[in-house]
């Protein structure tokens, strides 16, 4: 399992998701804090490519041995890719939550929503409060 980290340059949702914004697309994943709370991820149930996701709503589930967690979309848009590698190796979500453990790639329908997300400092404050 990776050590606790919250990279600069990502945008964070209070439900412990991150978004890496690249033009009008973004990659989503769950934060170190989320994977740590969940424990070893053993199953990721991805949405279908082409499905639309709405900010603040669940778009997928990640499961550990003991628990199921909804994954909330930080931003709205349409799924353009899902991380197929998690089918065989869901533990990547634990090992590398901001890299190989990414979940989906989304074409954003409303890039202005980015302003509603937290920067790393604000998210770290939130995590500190949750511990």
């Amino acid at each position, binding site marked *: *399992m990776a050590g606790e980290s919250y990279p600069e340059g990502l945008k964070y949702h209070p439900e412990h998701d991150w978004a890496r914004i690249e033009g009008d697309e973004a990659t989503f994943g769950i934060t170190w804090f989320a994977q740590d709370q969940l*424990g*070893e991820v*053993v*199953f990721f*149930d991805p949405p279908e490519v082409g499905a639309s996701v709405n900010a603040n709503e669940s778009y997928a*589930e990640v*499961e*550990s*041995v*003991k628990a*199921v967690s909804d994954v909330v979309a930080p931003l709205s848009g349409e799924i353009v890719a899902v991380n197929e590698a998690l*089918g065989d190796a869901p*533990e990547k979500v634990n090992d590398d939550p901001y890299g190989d453990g990414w979940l989906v790639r989304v074409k954003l329908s409303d890039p202005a929503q980015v302003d509603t997300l937290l920067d790393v400092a604000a998210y770290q404050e939130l995590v500190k409060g949750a511990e």
Partner: protein
Amino acid sequence: MPFAGWEMPVQYEGIRQEHVAVRTGAGIFDVSHMGEVETSGPDAERFLQRVLSNDVTKIPVGGAQYSVLCRDDGGVLDDLFTYRLAGDRYLTVTNASNHERDHEWIASHADGFDVTVTDAAAGWAMIALQGPRARGILSELIEGEAPARMHATETTVAGAPALVCGTGYTGEDGVELLTAPESAERIWDALAAGGATPVGLGARDTLRLEVCFHLYGNDLSEDRNPIEAGLGWVCKLDTGFVGSDALKGFEPTERIVPFAFTGPGIPRQGNAILTEHGEGTVTSGTMSPCLEVGIGMGYVPLEATRPGTPIEVDVRGKRRPAEVRERPLYRRES
């Protein structure tokens, strides 16, 4: 994680890692939450024959036996291991959350028997040592020979008095050690130093489910009788145990089966099972670390219990294909 008044770790290093350690090496589990009831006296055998479902007269001194405790209507109060320590002295291990009820139930049936029924839970700590390397690690620390499977020996381990039992809940070879609470740390440390991996409750559950051992509260309850639960083999109806009358001639309409997913997903307790012959319910479910698919146990209509029967499990609205399997779901490649 609090459990029946005990603080217990769900995991030490990681559930999957701990699970694999038990399948390939050796693991130690602190199962001191298990309760103990001691029954002694001239009528001990005759009395336990009345309250326990199995044929208690078949337990030799130094032997062990699995049974269930039934209500008068056959509902299962608990599933238990009983060790015969002497001709007139038995130790019965209970599940933590049922312990007080079990003790009261057993004691309440003692009228007319010359026995003493004692709640011995405070006097015992319990450590399970399980896995293909378990006996090798134990052999360096035990005085004398370790007991064979389904037997128990009073001896010392790491210099501390212990009741060593050839039983377990993982499907692997190994032992369970009952000792005084003040000796538990010493034995634990010696077993860990010998190479056994500490294993938490999380892997205890995945290990037992791969080999289809029942968990009380999931797969067994007062609402199910042992015939439905597939435990008819521990019910010797002609011994006249409490509940046997209700079970005589009982024809189940549902029975518990193990199953495995044939596609993605993880079954969870309470999920509906859909079969051609009606609905059933998942009582235990997890992702199998060894088989790498979702596995579980659940009650299904009798017509759907044959291994190979295709079923579906409704996991939060998604129908996941699965198949009824033989038990155990996991078997070591020999």
